[in-house]
């Protein structure tokens, strides 16, 4: 029982009585005849690290700008902390944004940049100086306070921009590709720092990213977007293990897809008939009609690949190893399972490469359990 309560505190979206901090209700944003954001509804809870994930041009930035008030929705309403802010201009919203390009004021020092927002709310000078010092310390850029933005490295600029957007203690911080301009190594370190920072200050974060790994690492929940619509909102685990449709399954990580039709239902176990040999059994909580075309999605690491196969395995597809890519820790096997389908499989290299049992051209079988994947209907 106590476990369930803890879970609710950590995952307020599981709790039907929890009041969302940000509520987006059927929001649409049109630019001419482009639907940049198309009928999006979404709730974000206090203290969340929420990510909008999608490929370039899918409307992530536009959605963020609608929250900041830099664009206004064509229809729909936006609520932040209980108040309808749909028609409130950006300078009156309790929200701050870290811009993708950082948008630091080039004629001001780091210190002046951080102070800028505090000046606007007419905070007394002493208090202002204190807050600026606090922010510079928080982001460890105290010694850069007198520098102008063009005298900073990319990483330092990112910190200055973050300090500026946090200085007013916003209720909601919006981050547009906060790590996009950093190089790979710096990005990985900064991901953890950003999460730690967010946990420490407790501000609700909404970030935009096109990098699925980044979203998986940092977020409490992820909304996967495509062409202005939200396809799925879930925790990183949920998105990865239980994608709700084919696009999400393919967008996050790699996946093997097998198409077929529902042949039989037995409780939450469905049997799917494919063109690849024996029928496949999967767990599926959805009530599926018999004969319905479905796609079975299975992550490569959930599949056992072996040459020593048995005939009584539950799910088995046979094929031939066509290609092996050795990546050090893992190898990727390309297995041809029918004249027009090749699947990819990842196996950890437990044995040294020279002692691997699988080689090119070998007859192999892929096996997995009914709980190792999902059945998708689109």
């Amino acid at each position, binding site marked *: 029982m106590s476990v369930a309560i803890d879970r609710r505190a950590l995952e307020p979206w599981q709790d039907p009585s929890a009041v969302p901090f940000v509520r987006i209700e059927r929001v649409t944003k049109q630019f001419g005849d482009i639907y940049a954001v198309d009928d999006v509804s979404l709730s974000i809870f206090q203290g969340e690290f929420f990510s909008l994930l999608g490929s370039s041009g899918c409307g992530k930035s536009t959605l963020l700008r609608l929250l900041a008030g830099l664009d206004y929705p064509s229809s729909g309403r936006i609520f932040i902390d209980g108040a309808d802010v749909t028609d409130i201009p950006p*300078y009156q919203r309790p929200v701050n944004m870290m811009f993708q*390009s950082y*948008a630091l*004021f080039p*004629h001001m020092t780091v210190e002046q940049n951080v102070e*800028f*927002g505090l000046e*606007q*709310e007419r905070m007394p000078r002493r208090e202002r100086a204190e807050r600026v010092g606090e922010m510079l310390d928080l982001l460890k850029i105290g010694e850069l306070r007198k520098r102008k933005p063009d005298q900073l490295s990319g990483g330092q600029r990112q910190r200055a921009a973050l300090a*500026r957007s946090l200085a007013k203690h916003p209720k909601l911080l919006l981050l547009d590709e906060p790590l996009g301009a950093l190089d790979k190594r710096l990005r990985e370190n900064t991901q953890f720092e950003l999460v730690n920072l967010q946990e420490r200050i407790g501000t609700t974060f909404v970030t935009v990213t096109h990098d699925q790994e980044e979203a998986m690492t940092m977020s409490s929940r992820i909304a996967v977007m495509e062409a202005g619509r939200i396809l799925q909102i879930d925790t990183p685990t949920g998105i990865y293990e239980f994608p709700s449709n084919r696009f999400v399954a393919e967008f996050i990580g790699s996946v093997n897809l097998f198409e077929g039709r529902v042949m039989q239902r037995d409780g939450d176990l469905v049997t799917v008939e494919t063109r690849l040999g024996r029928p496949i059994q999967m767990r599926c909580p959805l009530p599926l009609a018999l004969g319905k075309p479905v796609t079975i999605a299975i992550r490569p690491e959930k599949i056992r690949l072996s040459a020593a196969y048995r005939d009584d395995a539950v799910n088995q597809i046979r094929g031939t190893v066509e290609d092996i890519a050795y990546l050090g820790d893992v190898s990727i096997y390309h297995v041809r399972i029918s004249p027009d389908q090749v699947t990819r499989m990842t196996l950890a290299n437990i044995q040294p490469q020279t002692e691997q049992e699988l080689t090119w051209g070998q007859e192999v079988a892929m096996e997995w359990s009914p709980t190792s994947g999902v059945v998708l209907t689109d």
Partner: protein
Amino acid sequence: MPPTARPRQPGRRLSRLVNIGIPYLWLGIFFLLPFVIVLQISLAEPRLAQPPYTALAEWLGDGVLSIRLDLQNYLLVLSDDIYLAAFMNSLKVAFFCTLLCLLIGYPMAYAIATAPSRWRIPLLMLIILPFWTSFLIRVYAWIGILQTSGFLNNFLLWLGLIDEPLAILYTQTAIYIGIVYSYLPFMILPLYANLTRLDRTLLEAAADLGCRPFRAFVRVTLPLSRAGIIAGCMLVFIPVVGEFVIPDLLGGPDTLMVGRMLWTEFFSNVDWPLASALAILLLGLLVIPFVLMQRWQLAAEDPDR
């Protein structure tokens, strides 16, 4: 860079020499040489001959080269109040015209720079279009507009705003109108060039941080367009100080401006040395603020220095 970074390449050096040399050659021929000639005339004495000034250096024979530098012209200019008054009036007119051009030109440049992109080129064309007509003709046209029975007075009479025609032509006001009209494009173009480069997300960032649009303009747009403001002001101020045509055509006969003074000394009084001394002093008057402004700008850009 370490001094031994790379071997010298004669071809590259030559091309650098040409690259740097050509502008210097240009300046030498078209700026320095005329300057030296004018400077030399300003130190000579007038005479009734061809050319109408004495030579500075005279070969007297027996190895004696006599050089006479006559500072009379400078002393005269500096001691006679009328020249001082002309200088002051020119500076005053230039200052207020520059200010007016800035006040009118900034909003125009801003409006063009923020207009939808398909409107920008046509709007810029409207600014540049007057250049396709001769400057002189455009100033003459103002005579037609401003004179007692001119377009402006008739229009105001017709509106019933005035009962009798205003005397605008041949006054200081006419000079201001003519100069502001003529020099406005020189203010707008550099400002426009500067303002189109302004990153609009900076204004969004300001709004996001709680800044209302007008304050964002004061705190962000205005300081970031300083280079454009300075360029525009220079382009207006410097030529207006020496402006001759507009005061001559639109101003009254008693208008005291350096440009007119120069013209009178050169052509009416045929006192080339005095006119040259005036020109040199005018140049000094313009170069000094220019240098100061540049140093100030450098200092502002790099406060550590």
